[in-house]
């Protein structure tokens, strides 16, 4: 970036950073509400079919969700560490930490794929495709409809977040950001933390209760 990162319609970089952060938080709020619709559907059907949801939840392999929670929480730490490096103007370290975070995200997705594969083999599928013999209660197909919607939408967010981390990590490595200006690093980190935040609620709702 040859020119200053300051856009002409802002008085100074600090105000620009404030505006960027506010915009990002508005976007994150819409993301939260997007997931809330699915959580509300989950709450409704869990209220209507409590036994089927409890039994279906127990039919999942809880350890996968547990390990994935640890993986995502740790990736949030590595992203935060990358932001810390950016505030010191160390773009190479930012790239390194973001790279580690992307690897952790790959671990997350591999475990998720293993799980999806298992569901396809046992017939734990949404609606009329449900052929699982283990749980035969009304409402069980609905559990797996919501399971795939929630974890699927979350997985899409993981992939988007990985893309963001790769791009910003690469730019940081090129030295685009300085200790004075690293707002994109900060906003990318915010997005990743949101992906983690959503999973923190998905884990108990899907796997534990």
């Amino acid at each position, binding site marked *: 970036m040859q020119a200053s990162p300051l856009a002409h319609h802002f008085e100074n970089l600090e105000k620009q950073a404030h505006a960027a952060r506010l915009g990002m938080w508005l976007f994150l709020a819409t993301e939260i509400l997007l997931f*809330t619709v699915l959580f509300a559907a989950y709450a409704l059907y869990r209220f209507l079919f409590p036994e089927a949801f409890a039994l279906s939840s127990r039919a999942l392999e809880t350890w996968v969700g547990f390990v994935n929670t640890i993986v995502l929480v740790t990736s949030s730490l590595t992203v935060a560490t990358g932001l810390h490096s950016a505030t010191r103007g160390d773009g190479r370290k930012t790239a390194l930490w973001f790279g580690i975070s992307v690897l952790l995200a790959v671990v997350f997705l591999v475990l998720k794929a293993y799980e999806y594969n298992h569901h396809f083999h046992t017939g734990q599928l949404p609606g009329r495709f449900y052929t699982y013999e283990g749980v035969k209660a009304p409402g069980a197909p609905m559990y797996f409809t919501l399971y795939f919607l929630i974890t699927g939408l979350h997985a899409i967010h993981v992939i988007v977040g990985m893309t963001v981390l790769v791009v910003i990590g690469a730019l940081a490595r090129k030295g685009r950001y300085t200790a004075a200006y690293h707002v994109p690093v900060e906003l990318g980190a915010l997005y990743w933390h949101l992906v983690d935040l959503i999973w923190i609620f998905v884990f108990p709702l899907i796997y534990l209760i």
Partner: protein
Amino acid sequence: MAEPVAHDEHAATHRSHMPVYLGVWVALLVLTVVTYAVAKVHLPGAWAVAVALLIASLKGALVALFFMHLWDQRGANRLVFLTSLVFVALLIGLVIADNATRFPLANPPGTRGALPAEGSVREPPAANVQQRNRP
């Protein structure tokens, strides 16, 4: 890059975040293990959900406050986040309140307290009962 920047906020915001990050990370790991262990105990009824959601909210608060810097950044960000939480509570709360106060027949067959569907065979609830359409 010669833009003179007010460094005071950045300096104050980012002075030594690493200890906080590490502390939050450890707390998140501990809470994850706790919620996993509690789930294995199978608490009765609504307690399992209540405890699991309480721990999840604690973890979420740690992430939002410290990883996402709502704790140390001033401005409208907090207001935006809190407003979104209000709407989360509204949507989920009202949907549940609606269904909890319905006449049983208004809920889908196979659910708690609902009667069998019109035209359906009178048999104990089996798989796919709720998928049956009315003729």
